[in-house]
């Protein structure tokens, strides 16, 4: 959900790019964070915890807390709250600790 109109802010956004989330094709703005692009598409669940398999989302949004770790282009444990969106990124829900390849 994007903000359509704001009384004091104008949002400068990058060009529209395509990326995939768990195989689904989505669009976002280049240069915004992956977390922001997912939220804009209404997606708030980013990973499954390791022990109790509970859903986890964004918490701090500035790279401190490790709540939003996802698999991006095959690499696990990417903090999507600070990782910028690029054309063609493959973003996946991380289950557990992530596999190192």
């Amino acid at each position: 959900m994007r903000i359509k109109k704001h009384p004091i802010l104008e949002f400068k956004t990058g060009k529209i790019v395509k990326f995939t989330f768990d195989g689904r094709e989505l669009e976002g703005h280049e240069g915004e964070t992956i977390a922001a692009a997912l939220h804009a598409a209404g997606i708030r669940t980013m990973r499954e915890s390791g022990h109790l398999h509970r859903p986890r989302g964004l918490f701090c949004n500035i790279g401190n807390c490790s709540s939003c770790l996802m698999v991006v282009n095959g690499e696990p444990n990417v903090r999507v709250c600070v990782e910028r969106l690029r054309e063609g990124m493959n973003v996946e829900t991380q289950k557990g600790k992530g596999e190192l390849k």
Partner: protein
Amino acid sequence: MNKTADYVIIGGGVIGCSIAYNLAKKGAKNIVLIEKKYLTSGATGRCGAGVRMQFGTETNCLLAKNSIEMFENLEEELGYQDSIEFKQGGYLLLAYTEKMVEQFHKNLGVQHKLGIPSRWVTPEESKEIVPHLNTQGLLGATFCGKDGHCNPFKTTDAYAKAAERLGVEIMTYTEVKQLLAQDGRITGVETDKGVIETPVVVLCAGSYSRDLAATIDIDLPITPERHQILVTEPVEMMQGPMVMSFYHGLYCQQVPHGSFVMGLGDPNEPKEYNFNGSWQFLHEMAAKATFLLPPLANLRVVRQWAGLYDLTPDRQQILGSVPGFEGVHLAAGFSGHGFMIAPMTGKLMAEHILGEETSLPISMFDFSRFARGELFVEPSVV
């Protein structure tokens, strides 16, 4: 607070707690264990906690083999409700020079005589065991699937809790200032909380054993040497064995939690009580580990720390009594491989202290070997 005890054990690492448990199990009473900070605050809590049978001398092989068999059943033996996280993923010891190949084959000979299930593996077989291993320059390796890794905090906790259930009193945040002796006989220890009178002191305080022994004019040839370790973020399990290279002076293990724990041996480490990590270690460790195990380059380091080896001239522990001095027993100078032999060491020391015949011979580890010039060299240590 002045009190008396039949036995005072100094040092709350895995060795001290194992000795305390074994003494109490044999029926000894009135045992006090003194630790200047918290249990595992010294070398135990800072060690790599690898556990292996693959040594080069028969005595060490036996100590380690017996200990591993004890680790396998330790939770049951100690009535521990938690887990010591013993992971038997093996040890892969890498050989890079002809001399190493020769030595490893010699070691295998010693190990096989004692029934240790180790074997020679080719570089190709090494890669099957650790698929992400870079085999460049590798001539071969030895592998023993019974080797592995434990959680040093929980192992010590298990011993301490079992010892306490058997009546051992554990005093943490209590520092021994000096040993008290008269006419060649121990009479007690002076702590920052008062004097404890005792006829028997067991010294297992790592490097600090040297300083404490000096208070009764015993000169232990123990030198503290800093060693450093780092731990990475966790990922799903991908590496079964501990990978160890004497050539690179490196070991690297994935613990059950998923983190990689790794360390380096560096001859230039300061020989003093220095617990500060260095940036050179972080740099060198990262370079060497990512050469040997390339995918690890994508892992974040979450922490680095340092601990002290209690180094002796032959890198072997000192076990036993002090000739001409009554009531002092030593279990110190483990030189970086104390954790893995703690179960058997505790048992042997308890037997020795109570004057029983020891289950394995320990005379080659006695304090007098330095005076006799009979150093006991172990070829396979980092």
